[in-house]
Structures are given as C-alpha cells and as structure tokens.
C-alpha cells in the first residue's frame, strides 16, 4: 500500500550535505591578505617586530594554528548555515587536521630558511631573518586557510565523479560484459 500524498508532503526532506566552493574561501583569504598588506604598509616596523617576537618566544606556530583553525571552522559553519546543509565527517576531518599540518610544515620550512640564512655569509643577517619570518608567516596564514578548502573541494569532486559513474553505468557491477 502506498503512502497518502499529504503524508509524503509532510515527511521531512533529507538534508543535503555542504558542498564547498573554492570561491567562498578565496574571498575570505583575499580579505585577510589585504589586511596583512595594510598592516605592513601602515606599521612597517612594529608589525614586523610583533611577529618576530612571537617567533622568538615560540608562539608563532601555535598562533598560526589557532587563527587558521578558527577561520576555517567559522567559514565552513557560515557556508553550512547559508546553504542550510548538513556538515560532513570528511569536511570536519579535513578542516580539523590540515591547518595543523600546514602550520607545522611552515614552521619546519621557516626554521630551515632561518638556518640557511644564518649559515650564509650575508650582510644584515638580523634584518634578513626578520623578513623571512614575516614572509613565511604570511604564506602560512594563506595556505593554512586556503589549502584545506582546496583539498576538501577536490575530495568532494572526486566523490561526486565516482558516484556519477556508478549511477550512469550500474551494469558494470552487476553484469560483466561477455566477449
């Protein structure tokens, strides 16, 4: 016996999952990037000194992790709220782990760059190290926010392509072609 039409109409529709578009993350990263640039222009000395002091006290990597995780989570929740869609485990895994991995990777990279600078016989070593720290902080900030969304987008696309293929040719799994 089939369900009556009003009952079907009242049944709650299954909530779709959040589909992330790279453009959503790109706008936020671009905005943060411009703020970083403005701080560099208007506070060229003090802004650099704050970041260098943070690195010397060992707080820079933790600060990067906190900032990127917060921005990523906020961005994802905002997208989910706007689309009225359900967050997924895949997204939580990506956005929870990748910013930390990126921050750790950038800190290794920065340490390598500082060691490389100090090993060379170059003039104005302190100034060069300060600029390396500033540049890597900026790149770490951008990559920590943008790369997790890029990975998530590519994974979603991969999953969608695979499920489309399975929908289009179901016979592949059920009836093998005989030659």
């Amino acid at each position, binding site marked *: 016996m089939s369900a009556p039409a009003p009952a079907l109409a009242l049944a709650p529709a299954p909530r779709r999952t959040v589909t992330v*578009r*790279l*453009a*959503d993350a*790109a*706008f936020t*990263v*671009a*905005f943060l*990037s*411009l703020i*970083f*640039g403005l701080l*560099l*222009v*208007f506070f*060229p000395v003090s802004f650099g000194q704050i970041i260098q002091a943070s690195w010397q006290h060992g707080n820079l990597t933790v600060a990067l992790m906190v900032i990127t995780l917060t921005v990523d989570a906020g961005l994802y929740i905002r997208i989910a709220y706007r689309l009225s869609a359900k967050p997924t485990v895949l997204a939580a895994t990506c956005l929870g782990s990748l910013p930390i991995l990126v921050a750790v990777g*950038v800190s290794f*990279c*920065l340490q*390598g*760059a500082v060691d*490389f*600078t100090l090993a060379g016989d*170059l*003039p*104005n070593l302190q*100034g*060069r190290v*300060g*600029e*390396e720290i*500033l*540049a*890597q902080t*900026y*790149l770490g900030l*951008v*990559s920590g926010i*943008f*790369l997790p969304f*890029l990975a998530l987008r590519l994974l979603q696309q991969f999953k969608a392509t695979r499920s489309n293929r399975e929908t289009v040719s179901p016979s592949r799994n059920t009836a093998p072609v005989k030659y």
Partner: protein
Amino acid sequence: MADWMSLKWLLWISLYLVLGVFVPWATSLAWAHQHGSNLRPRPKQLFERGELGLIGLVLGISVIWDLLRSQYMPQTIALGSVLLAVSGTMAGTVWIETYCRQSTGVSNNPERAWRDSRNLAFLVFSMAIVIEILLERFAKVAAS
C-alpha cells in the same frame, strides 16, 4: 609610518587592473559606438565566462617570476611559488571549466562562473600585492 615612496607595487597592480580589466571593457564600448550598436556591456557581462580567472593566472605567473629572482631563501621562494601557482591555476580553471561546459552543452551557470572567477582573481590579486610589498621590503634590507 608608511613609506609612501615604496608604493611601486600600487602602480604595478593598477597596470594589471587597467590593461586587463578596464581597457577590454572600454574597447567593447568603443566597438559598440563605432558600429552604432546599443551594446553597453557591464564588466560582469564581459567577464561572465570566467576570463578574470585567466587574468589572475597571468598575474600569478609574473609574481612567481619576481619571487624566483629575489634573494629570499629557497624554502620561502618554493612555498610562495607553489601557493601562487595553485591559486592561479584554480582561478584559470574557472575559465576552462566554463568553456568546456559551454562547448559540450553541459548545464552552465554564468552567475556562478562570474562569482568564482571574481573571488579567485581577487585572491590572486591580494596575494600578489602582499608578496610584492614583502619583496620590496626584502630588497631594501638586502641592499642595506
């Protein structure tokens, strides 16, 4: 205090904006005027197939070139170049995807293509600005 004499990057980025966005738009208006047409395209209509993404990619390439010529350490150059290349490629992909969708008749949403290309080009532009500022600062430090 800000060093206004070092704002060369502002001139540099405005060259891209003028030659890459304003001039094509002005050319379309001039063409319409010359041919007595009522065509008055807005920038959104002109770049609705994701062409802004292509401009972003070209801008990204020029900044990668500047980074490669800089005196930054190899780790910083590699990180910056890869990040710019990824962002630029994703921006350029919007244009490619729109072209493929239009060519094959797969459903295409010009509004979405415009929004994606605009946001990704904005990302590449803002990254290009900051990296040029950083390059300018580093050049001064290295010269002193």
